[in-house]
């Protein structure tokens, strides 16, 4: 159980050592993240100028959703997505052989290889937005709240990891799947708003197909005291199922893979 974490720590250290050589990239990322945060806040403000609540969420609560959205985007963008691109590239170029011959679990290896550290700027910004939102909501801190928020955040991240990996695994069969990845990343944008406002067919898709609902709305619900223990338990079960399915499909995909050199 600890071994994946140790591997992750090792690769993260290499990534950091690699990236700190290019410090200018940090400032570029700050510029870009600041820009997209600014745009997002302007959009929220335009909405606020017309209405006080959207789908039952107050202004401060909508800001909390946006904070979770930015935070989750940063986590996925730095820890998950770069690994998926690297993996798909490996399959295409036939380089996956090098990973498969290593004496570690291949799924773990391809999932922890890269950390795009500068994207963590978004994590910092997301936390800042969240803090402002929490202050405005006048939230009373409690252990239950902290636990519910932290656990739903982690589960949301695992679920996004699962669907992104599922999409990447398809590259074992269809070599070109980057359109699918791009599509999923644009669907993630729907998470800026509470999923409750979307029509039923779209909300179902955003919940089970591409779990934006679990990744952003549910943690925000936890933070605003909307989360019931039942929903928390349901999220937990769904996460386990997703992990199981992803694992099975990974095994199936591996069997289908024939290397470039083999």
């Amino acid at each position, binding site marked *: 159980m600890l071994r994946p974490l140790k591997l992750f720590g090792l690769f993260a250290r290499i990534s950091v050592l690699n990236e700190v050589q290019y410090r200018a990239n940090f400032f*570029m990322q700050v510029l870009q993240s600041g820009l997209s945060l600014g745009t997002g806040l302007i959009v929220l403000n335009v909405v606020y100028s017309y209405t006080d609540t959207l789908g039952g969420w107050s202004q401060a609560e909508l800001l909390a959703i946006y904070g979770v959205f930015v935070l989750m985007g940063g986590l996925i963008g730095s820890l998950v997505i770069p690994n998926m691109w690297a993996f798909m590239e490996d399959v295409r170029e036939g380089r996956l052989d090098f990973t498969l011959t290593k004496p570690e679990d291949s799924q773990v290896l391809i999932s922890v290889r890269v950390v795009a550290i500068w994207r963590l700027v978004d994590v910092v910004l997301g936390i800042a937005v969240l803090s402002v939102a929490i202050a405005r909501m006048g939230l009373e801190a409690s252990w239950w709240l902290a636990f519910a928020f932290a656990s739903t955040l982690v589960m949301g991240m695992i679920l996004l990891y699962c669907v992104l990996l599922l999409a990447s695994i398809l590259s074992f069969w269809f070599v070109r799947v980057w359109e699918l990845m791009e599509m999923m990343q644009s669907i993630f944008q729907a998470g800026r*708003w509470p999923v409750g406002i979307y*029509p039923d067919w779209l909300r179902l898709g955003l919940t089970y197909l591409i779990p934006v609902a679990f990744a952003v709305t549910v943690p925000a619900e936890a933070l605003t005291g909307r989360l019931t223990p039942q929903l928390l338990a349901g999220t937990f079960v769904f996460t386990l199922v997703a992990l199981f399915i992803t694992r099975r499909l990974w095994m199936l995909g591996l069997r289908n893979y024939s290397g470039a050199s083999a």
Partner: protein
Amino acid sequence: MGLNENITTSHPRSRMSLRGYLQMYAVAARQAIIEQLQYPAANMMFMVHILIEPVIYLVVWSSVANSQGGAIGGYTAAQFAGYYIIWTLVRQFNLAIGPHGFHWRIKEGRLAAELLRPVHPLLPDLGYYLGYKVPQTLYWLPMGFLLWLLFKPEISPDPWQVLAFPVVLMLAFFVRFFFMWLLGLVCFWTERVDALFELYFAAELLFSGRLVPLEVMPAWAQNVANFLPFQWTFYFPIEVLLGRVSLAEFWPGVLIQLAWITGGYSLVRLIWKLAVKRFTAVGS
């Protein structure tokens, strides 16, 4: 280096006949059509990728309108639906070579080969993106129909507005095409272009009517938008087909579109000359 200068100083027009140009456009357009029809699944996914953005805006603004008694800024929920469904068609048409594509073409050394051709690289691009509209419109049709069924829009144009729409749609493409090219030319001077591109796209999002009809934006944003070309690539064509542009507003709008096209084209010509002088290719 001398070769490049040859290309900028010589006038291809004196060498190539009108027929030659038309043939060149036709070839570039056909190439785009064939390329796009080759990957139907990838194209469908690209379509979803494009559609998800307006669907989000549509849902947000119709819920805001509904929560405020049915209308805000002169738009009802059904009119918002109409706005964003036309948006998807306009988006298909104003797609042009992105600055990222330009960056790639310089970085990979493709431009060196393109410079050797007896035509300005702008022209095959133009042909390619015009041809690109054919399969994209085909892929758009089922999606547009589906959106229509799902969101029941209210679109009420007069007959002349329906006829005028294709015209302003094409003009919108030309405005966007030249300004995208202009942005791409920045790559001749610097490699670090991502932040600049994002600044440009953020401005486009806010001031073009891409995010929300400009009338719904705060007054300061509307004022800023009047000094920028963006609203003539999204807002204006959408409003024409939506039936919200009167004849008295239509002609000035077309003139402003033409003015931006002329301005954009002149700037491209001017900066292109400077850019090519800087360009050096390695190898072949």
